[in-house]
């Protein structure tokens, strides 16, 4: 029995008959919109920087902003967000700053993670943002463990983990859902079904393309949501988080969305997918749709929109300018944080490298 896709506003920004708007203030609605637009403009700018050779790599999320930001927005500050590589929008929603993000991308001295990872692999303990790693699916059991820890400690935090449709094929997805079912862990499995895993369409990824249906294998709740509807994403996540906090266990949320762009800046999707498919999804763009909704509701205007575009353009420009002045991390940083203290063999390696670099 395939349940319906949860939606609140349709592709034209109209509220769907009978749909209930979530309890969000006008300010919140505008914040949601700002976050999505900001995310998109950052993506665009970074992609250009990569083309210009100024940064090494970038992962965009164009078209998926609603699924990422709507869900993150529904959490409390003490909840953990456990991302893959495509969800900086969720970090922005948490208050993660552009400056920090850019420093991470440039891997410079001010980068919190000390230039150690590729762009888009950020982390923040303070904001309860787990550390991004490239391998697909590996973050899912971490969210499970964080949630289990909350149950064990008797605290109220929920862990939400993001992953793609491709990640549902991994063992890590399965074993985490199964544990979560057994332990009724307060975890939200948020699958961004963006229909592609690099060049592999979801139809070749699994015979069960109704991804929410996979929840049944673990006797946990599975819900399908229009991932381009930021309000529906907000509402579904909020509900899952409340349920988790009540001790009623995990939820698998399938956000149905679309990767409008390339997989990453290393990819060119024209080699494997039809423009026609992309065009269809462009019509369902989450930002346009939400803008129309806001304007029709009277909480937003074209003028405000233009002003916002300018604000973002300037903000991003200024941040890049500042960040490009910052130099690379010191050689010493290579040897820190492998363990909590630098062991003798790393001291030897550090000293050798330093003596050579002094020459």
């Amino acid at each position, binding site marked *: 029995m395939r349940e319906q896709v949860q939606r609140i506003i349709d592709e034209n920004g109209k509220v769907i008959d009978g749909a209930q708007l979530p309890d969000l203030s006008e300010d919140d609605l505008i914040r949601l919109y700002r976050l999505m637009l900001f995310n998109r403009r950052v993506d665009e700018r970074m992609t250009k920087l990569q083309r210009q050779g100024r940064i090494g790599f970038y992962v965009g999320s164009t078209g998926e902003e609603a699924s990422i930001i709507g869900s993150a927005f529904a959490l409390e500050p003490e909840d*953990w967000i*456990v991302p893959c590589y495509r969800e900086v929008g969720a970090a922005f929603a948490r208050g993660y700053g552009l400056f920090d993000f850019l420093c991470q991308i440039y891997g410079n001295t001010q*980068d*919190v*993670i*000390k230039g*150690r*990872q590729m762009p888009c*692999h950020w*982390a*923040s*303990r303070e904001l309860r943002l*787990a*550390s991004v*790693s490239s*391998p697909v699916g*590996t973050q*899912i*059991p*971490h*969210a*499970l*463990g*964080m*949630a*289990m*820890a*909350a*149950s*064990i*400690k008797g605290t109220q*935090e929920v*862990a939400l983990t993001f992953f793609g449709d491709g990640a549902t094929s991994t*063992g*890590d997805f399965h*074993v*985490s859902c*199964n*544990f979560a079912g*057994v332990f009724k862990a307060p975890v939200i499995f948020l699958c961004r079904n963006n229909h592609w895993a690099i060049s592999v369409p979801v139809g070749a990824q699994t015979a069960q393309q109704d991804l929410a249906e996979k929840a049944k294998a673990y006797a946990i709740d599975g819900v399908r949501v229009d991932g381009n509807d930021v309000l529906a994403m907000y509402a579904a996540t909020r509900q899952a988080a409340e349920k988790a906090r009540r001790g009623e266990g995990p939820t698998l949320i399938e956000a149905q969305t679309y990767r409008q762009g390339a997989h990453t800046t290393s990819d060119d999707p024209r080699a494997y997918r039809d423009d026609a498919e992309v065009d269809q999804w462009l019509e369902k763009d989450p930002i346009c749709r939400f803008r129309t909704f806001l304007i029709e509701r009277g909480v937003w205007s074209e003028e405000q929109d233009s002003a916002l575009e300018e604000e973002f353009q300037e903000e991003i420009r200024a941040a890049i300018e500042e960040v490009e002045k910052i130099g690379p991390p010191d050689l010493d940083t290579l040897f*820190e*944080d*492998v*363990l*909590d203290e630098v*062991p*003798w*063999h790393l001291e030897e390696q550090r000293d050798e490298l330093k003596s050579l670099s002094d020459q």
Partner: protein
Amino acid sequence: MPKMNIIQAINDALRVEMRRDDRVVVFGEDVGKFGGVFRATQGLQDEFGTKRSFDTPLSETAIVGAAIGMAINGLIPVSEIQFADFIYPAFDQIVNEAAKMRYRSGAELSCPMVIRTPYGGGIRGGHYHSQSPEALFVHTPGLKVVIPSTPYDAKGLLISAIRDPNPVIFLEPKRVYRAARGEVPNGDYQIPLGEAKVLVEGEDATIVTYGAMVHTVMDAVDKISASDGITVEVIDLRTLLPWDVETVLSSVEKTGRVAIVHEAPRTCGYGAEIAATIAEKSLLNLQAPVLRVAGLDTPFPYTLEHEYLPNEKRIRKVLNDLINY
């Protein structure tokens, strides 16, 4: 002081730590109600309840992956992998996630956790209840690797491992789980990670070893010393990473002749690292090549496991070769 075997010492260490610090949680397959197939966690669920000592479904991936999340979120997970041979489904979580978490996040996040697992042969366990995978973890930056050989060390090292802020792979010598007995203090004490122990001093040669092989080596050395009138210094490394290079090198300076004994396969085994380091740092002290007595470069066999494992004959031969070089 009470006498204990290694299982009891481990159980005692877990109990001490669980009493001291309620962030410590213990879990794995058959670990909770049953107390572990080797009974190392026996009684913990009774004392600490099902929240802090529990059974999991059958997935090493999830056991270690969840441990990482718990560690990040404020607990100190001590998970058990039933046999080291079954640790490979968790390999990605260990080497790509736990080991790199502190580094990759610029120390924003870290994984204070221990993975306990019985390793090694000699119990008629064949391919899949006998392996010694230590070198794989030593080769992975970001982990500490510990192998005790006695009950006293097992307890003291496990307590240190639990208090260590890094992920620690704690390999337990199951062959001597019950056979190795000794006095173990009550309550709280630590043996620092990274310090080897000179078990017996000697002049003619040095043997570096660890884990279950410590017992094989000590027995062999006893006999050989008695029969051949030589003295052999035996070093139990106890921590494989970071290892105690000073203790090893000062022994080499004294004896000039070294063998390393371990039961993992020889090629690219842990012994290669020790041999390479000694030959690099102390070549002029060497009166003979550094020799390795190791498991064979075959999967671990069943019927002929005692032919596979280092034994007195092979240790005797290698000492002969060293001394008559």
